[in-house]
């Protein structure tokens, strides 16, 4: 895995960010709050946005609420889209049937509205938004073209969470190859670009 990170970082001009501290920016990241991404890289994503890419590992007694012996590992790419904060508090596009915890941490009780207007999207993802969110804005963001991309281009286990301007894209670790790192890094950059593009329409 470290070798893959080394090679991917060298090919994209990213710097070593091992030990990047995980903050509770999204529900997935909150499960590993206080832990570190290791290995990790930092640098500029496609489109010029700064981001961090790393291995998120939690569970097995390491994180709050994870009291079993099971540990969870995801490759995550984290970036920020400040313009999204006043427009869309929470937008979660979760991979169906992905298991992120045993027992949960109570986030499951959080008030969310399911967004089910696209059959293609809901066939692959569970999409949730803040209650009373501007639905027209969501419809514009999740345009047919973007939905086509979401259901066909990202890796099989890709998911993303946008919360208060912070975006985390993630995939299951799989073989941990350079191709896998590239896939989550670039897919997250594409999602970030699309969200920023739609935010700019509002200004």
């Amino acid at each position, binding site marked *: 895995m470290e070798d893959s990170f080394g090679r991917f970082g060298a090919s994209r001009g990213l710097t070593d960010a091992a030990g990047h501290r995980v903050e509770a920016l999204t529900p997935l990241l909150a499960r590993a709050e206080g832990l570190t991404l290791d290995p990790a890289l930092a640098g500029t994503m496609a489109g010029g946005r700064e981001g961090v890419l790393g291995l998120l590992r939690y569970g097995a007694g390491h994180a709050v609420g994870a009291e079993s012996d099971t540990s969870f590992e995801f490759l995550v790419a984290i970036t920020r889209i400040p313009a999204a904060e006043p427009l869309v*508090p*929470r937008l979660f596009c979760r991979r169906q049937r992905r298991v992120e915890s045993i027992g949960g941490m109570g986030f499951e*009780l959080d008030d969310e509205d399911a967004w089910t207007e696209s059959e293609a999207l809901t066939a692959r993802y569970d999409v949730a938004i*803040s209650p*009373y969110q501007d639905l027209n804005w969501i419809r514009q963001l999740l345009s047919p073209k973007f939905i086509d991309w979401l259901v066909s281009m990202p890796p099989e286990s890709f998911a993303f969470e946008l919360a208060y301007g912070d975006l985390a894209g993630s995939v299951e670790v799989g073989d941990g190859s350079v191709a896998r790192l590239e896939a989550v890094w670039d897919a997250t950059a594409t999602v970030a670009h699309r969200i920023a593009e739609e935010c700019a329409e509002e200004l």
Partner: protein
Amino acid sequence: MLALGVASRSVIGLLGAIVLIGMGACYVIASLIAVWVAIRARLGNRHKRWLSANGLRGKATVVSAGTGMTINEQPLFELVVDLDVPGQAPRRIERKLIVGSFAARRIRPGLTMPAYVHPSDPEDVLLVW
């Protein structure tokens, strides 16, 4: 002696009936309260839906966020926010808001969230978290 036994049985029967009626009344009152709470919540949600569809959309920036009390394990925030709605003078308002456990970790001074204001009642404000 027989008359005394019959009388005491009657008193016990009467007390039993009173207790049963009292318990029944409690159940009825509790049910009515639950129905009232449910209707109120439903009407409140319907109004919020209306406001998010027809209200003036702006943004609210958190100035201060205090919490201490929880309701159903969800924190009750006492928020002070600066409201910025197109066509209206900026103003500072206070609101109490129950938020989910994840959102509670993110709500802090400086955070901006969407806000909707009733077109004809500036005090009717919906904060979207």
